[in-house]
């Protein structure tokens, strides 16, 4: 089982993902430079958070043209796993692996804080250890995490069970008050139709050590590991 964390110019959370996988979970993980074309040896590709290419123009708009992205698209189309966190999510929407777009937070400010999110779909490889409806606390840190999709697109997402996480209250209520950034329907993370590509704004890698306050995020990484070890769902 091998993880690849892609490093774009301007990636910041590459090292954070790497540390969780190698130091905390003792897994085999590499940094993969953005101009790499052959990524066949990886089971999971992680597009980490940060500000690829400065996030100039639009977040992820320039990174999606990196050499590696063609291979990431192929990797995804083969059914292998891709997870985009924060900036990685933005890149996945720009490259078209996930629908919708991420726009400026509705309060126009960068927001860094830990928020509760509710697991809406526990049948993806990324969430199979979660209960449906489970609330986990995961930090967000973004200026442009306001998920937008038109009504038709939203209907598709709902129909195909593609909404994986939504911002909620501590008790798990989905309401306006617990929506930190204005996302449509409190959406915090979605997957593609096939379920093998996940994009999420919250940072599970920041919630993976008790020393740093919280390890709710580990459940995602452990789900992936269990999924790969078994090769299928239970």
């Amino acid at each position: 089982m091998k993880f690849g964390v892609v490093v774009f110019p301007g990636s910041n959370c590459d090292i954070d993902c790497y540390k969780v996988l190698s130091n905390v979970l003792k897994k085999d993980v590499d940094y993969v430079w953005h101009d790499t074309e052959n990524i066949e040896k990886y089971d999971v590709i992680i597009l980490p958070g940060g500000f690829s290419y400065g996030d100039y123009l639009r977040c992820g708009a320039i990174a999606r043209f990196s050499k590696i992205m063609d291979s990431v698209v192929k990797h995804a189309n083969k059914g292998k796993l891709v997870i985009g966190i924060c900036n990685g999510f933005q890149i996945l929407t720009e490259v078209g692996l996930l629908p919708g777009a991420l726009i400026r937070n509705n309060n126009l400010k960068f927001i860094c804080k830990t928020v509760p999110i509710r697991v809406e779909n526990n049948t993806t490889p990324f969430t199979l250890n979660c209960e449906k409806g489970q609330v986990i606390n995961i930090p967000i840190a973004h200026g442009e995490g306001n998920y937008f999709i038109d009504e038709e697109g939203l209907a598709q997402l709902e129909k195909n069970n593609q909404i994986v996480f939504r911002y909620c209250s501590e008790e798990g209520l989905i309401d306006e008050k617990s929506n930190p950034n204005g996302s449509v329907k409190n959406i915090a993370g979605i997957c593609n139709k096939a379920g093998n590509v996940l994009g999420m704004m919250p940072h599970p890698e920041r919630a993976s050590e008790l020393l740093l306050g919280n390890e709710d995020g580990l459940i995602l990484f452990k789900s992936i590991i269990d999924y790969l070890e078994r090769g299928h769902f239970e």
Partner: protein
Amino acid sequence: MKAVVYVTLKKGISDPQGNAVKEALDSLGYREVNKVRIGKIIELELEDMDKEEAEIKIKEMCEKLLANTVMEKYSFEILEG
């Protein structure tokens, strides 16, 4: 030659930045402003080429990179000279 590309949010997409500017104008006493929308203006300096060719190229650049047509629309002008 020069070209100017205008990228603005599609109708119906909320524009928090525009709203914030409207509020600010309001509090400065400019009550006569009803709505504000904010977009981008991208000025390109290009090698001289045929105008039609330029149009094709710039349209391509917009579709590929300069605008995200999920939420933005674009238009452009080519200024010769």
